[in-house]
């Protein structure tokens, strides 16, 4: 009853703020825009206008198209970026206001444990995003059903994934609000934390890309070395040909050593950042899980096949060229092999530690 009262009060607090309704209206506009876009045999449609585009129903089914738009625009861009920033602005004051002089005395003097109070206030902070993403997803579900002709209940996975993503940030925001007692300081430091997460993730992804590229180059050179070895050992060759093959083998072996060293160095750096990332919340990958849940590889196969010829990219030129498509395929497989436990489990461990520190500070503090 007490905890429900706090959640109910938080709902009233959010509903009393303009930003809640502004975000809700903007979410409505995003869904409306989403409903206005369609796909047909020739390309994209916006309301009654048609545009030729590389996307058409021969590459993507309307259902897959809408799911991709939902994940990439609705969730990744709108909810996980813009709406999350607005949600943080709206909720950063929850803990500082809760512990402000004159308010905290009223609550702490009631028969509720401090730890429960802190966790309930944290949950109350997630209410904003839960309500927003809930309304947004329901509206998107209806749009996809009507426009795409497929009723996809899997869309509602957006609610837990987005709330989970926001909870990583809000756990830190709550702790910072508790420590600084200032909404603005908590907000700015949370943005800094988010930027650090983004930076670590971007660096790890870049290093992963280079590690994969170098690994493919090593594999390619290894195949060359193998071919050169076979040539050297091949029967019925003249002394001169054997000598030439041996020289070529030596060159390839030197090249292999060089590429192995490059790949090893890159692997080490990637290992460091992967290690750092392992103990931090994986905000981007948590949202990526939604795409993994909603859109299968098979759905995207025609689209992937119609893409570039693999000639672009960092590794497509030089002495050991590697196809960009090959790298992306290997990279995608590697990322897909990251388990749910690693992505969400380790993030939740981080969140639990941050919440635990917050609860401990809150429990021991004098107000």
């Amino acid at each position, binding site marked *: *009853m007490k905890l429900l*009262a706090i959640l109910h009060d938080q709902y*009233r*607090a959010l509903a009393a703020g303009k930003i809640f309704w502004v975000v809700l209206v903007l979410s409505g506009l995003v869904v409306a825009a989403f409903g206005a876009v369609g796909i047909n045999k020739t390309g994209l449609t916006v309301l009654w206008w048609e545009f030729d585009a590389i996307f058409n129903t021969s590459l993507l089914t309307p259902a897959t198209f809408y799911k991709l738009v939902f994940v990439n625009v609705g969730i990744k861009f709108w909810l996980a970026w813009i709406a999350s920033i607005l949600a943080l602005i709206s909720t950063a004051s929850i803990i500082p206001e809760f512990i402000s002089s004159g*308010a*905290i*005395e*009223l609550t702490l*003097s009631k028969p509720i444990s401090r730890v429960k109070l802190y966790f309930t206030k944290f949950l109350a902070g997630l209410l904003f995003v839960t309500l927003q993403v809930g309304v947004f997803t329901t509206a998107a579900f209806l749009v996809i059903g009507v426009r795409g002709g497929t009723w996809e209940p899997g869309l509602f996975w957006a609610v837990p994934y987005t709330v989970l993503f926001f909870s990583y940030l809000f756990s830190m925001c709550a702790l910072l609000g508790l420590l600084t007692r200032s909404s603005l300081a908590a907000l700015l430091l949370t943005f800094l934390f988010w930027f650090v997460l983004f930076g670590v993730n971007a660096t790890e992804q870049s290093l992963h890309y280079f590690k994969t590229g170098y690994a493919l180059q090593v594999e390619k050179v290894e195949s060359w070395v193998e071919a050169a070895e076979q040539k050297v050992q091949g029967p019925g060759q003249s002394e001169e040909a054997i000598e030439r093959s041996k020289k070529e083998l030596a060159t390839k072996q030197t090249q292999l050593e060089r590429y192995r060293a490059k790949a090893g160095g890159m692997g080490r750096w990637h290992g460091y950042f992967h290690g750092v990332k392992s103990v931090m919340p994986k905000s981007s990958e948590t949202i990526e899980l939604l795409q993994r849940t909603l859109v299968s590889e098979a759905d995207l196969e025609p689209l992937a096949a119609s893409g570039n010829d693999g000639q672009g990219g960092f590794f497509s030129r030089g002495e050991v060229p590697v196809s960009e498509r090959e790298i992306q395929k290997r990279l995608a497989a590697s990322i897909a092999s990251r388990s749910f436990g690693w992505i969400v489990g380790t993030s939740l461990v981080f969140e639990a530690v941050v919440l635990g520190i917050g609860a401990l500070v809150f429990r021991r503090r*004098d107000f």
Partner: protein
Amino acid sequence: MVIDLDEVSKVYRGRVHALRGISMKVHKGEVFGLLGPNGAGKSTLVKVLTTVVRPTSCRGTMLGQPVGTKWVLGRVGYLPEHHKFPEYLTGAQVLDYYGALSGVRRRERRRRAEGLLRQVGISAWQKKKVKGYSKGMRQRLGIAQALMNDPDLVMLDEPTDGVDPVGRRDIRNMMVELREQGRTVFINSHLLSELEMICDRVAIIVKGVVAMQGTIQDLTDYGRRYEIEVELPQEGAGGTKGLQTLLRASGVRALGAGSTNDAMIGVETLAAPVLGLPVGANAVRGQLATGEAVVVSGSTIRIGTDDPAPIQPVIDAVRRAGLSIRAVKQMRPSLEDLFMRAVVDPETGQEFTPGAEVGRAKGKPGAQPTMGGRP
């Protein structure tokens, strides 16, 4: 015993001694006043009792249970000083919310909220948002909030702060009503005259220790006195000197000297009280032959006794000298007099500096013996 504290202390960051061994008793069904200068530790003590501040050490009970247990908090109603209610809630919603936090069931909350809003006189505003409330209305709402859980002990921190005279009277009446209902009311206030009107017992805290504690009757007994106002033929020092000579002739001795030499009633600049008598600058003090303290200040003779017998020789001496007596009054100190006496350092005669003791814990400079009947 509703509150029975023994050696409650609170040290902030290892060096600010906000409370230095508070021992205090509050009896069931009384209105208890907690007084003290700014920074004396009153609010810290109230916050310790309501678990807002964690004590460094705390022995004692509230409502028969250890201080700060959930059961105790459920039986306590608390109005903090400078409380802040959520501005987006209406008066009725505030009561409902804090009632729910206290564990009151929904139906009961609705019933109590209606009654309490009527009781504190803001039922017409119950559906209006708190942001539109005046300071006085917020205070009334705060009191209603403190009563939502039907508490046995009501702790009010500056309950009449910002309230107009009519509102203050209403709140005083409410305190009396609560006492009549058998509840215990614990008030922390600076308005001494108001506390004097309704408190059964008070404690004065100075520098984190209880300097005085007891019933107002017992505490003020200590400073009872007679005051004789005399019509002097000439005003100023000359007139006062004449009065001194007169008193000397009637057998008043110098305080502490015990002799009869002529220099006995010398003019001294005193700030410290003499046996409970207020002494201003340039006052003259002495002692009757029967031992009662005398202070002569301007045209007023103050005699530290509530027995009329010892003052008769003084009246006779004044009359013999042909002086007119304007008034003979039996006085007892006000709560303010007691308060002022408690906040003065007996060693230096200066008021204690405001704020908590910083640094290592020293003795208890503010401590004076508990006075009066029940501790």
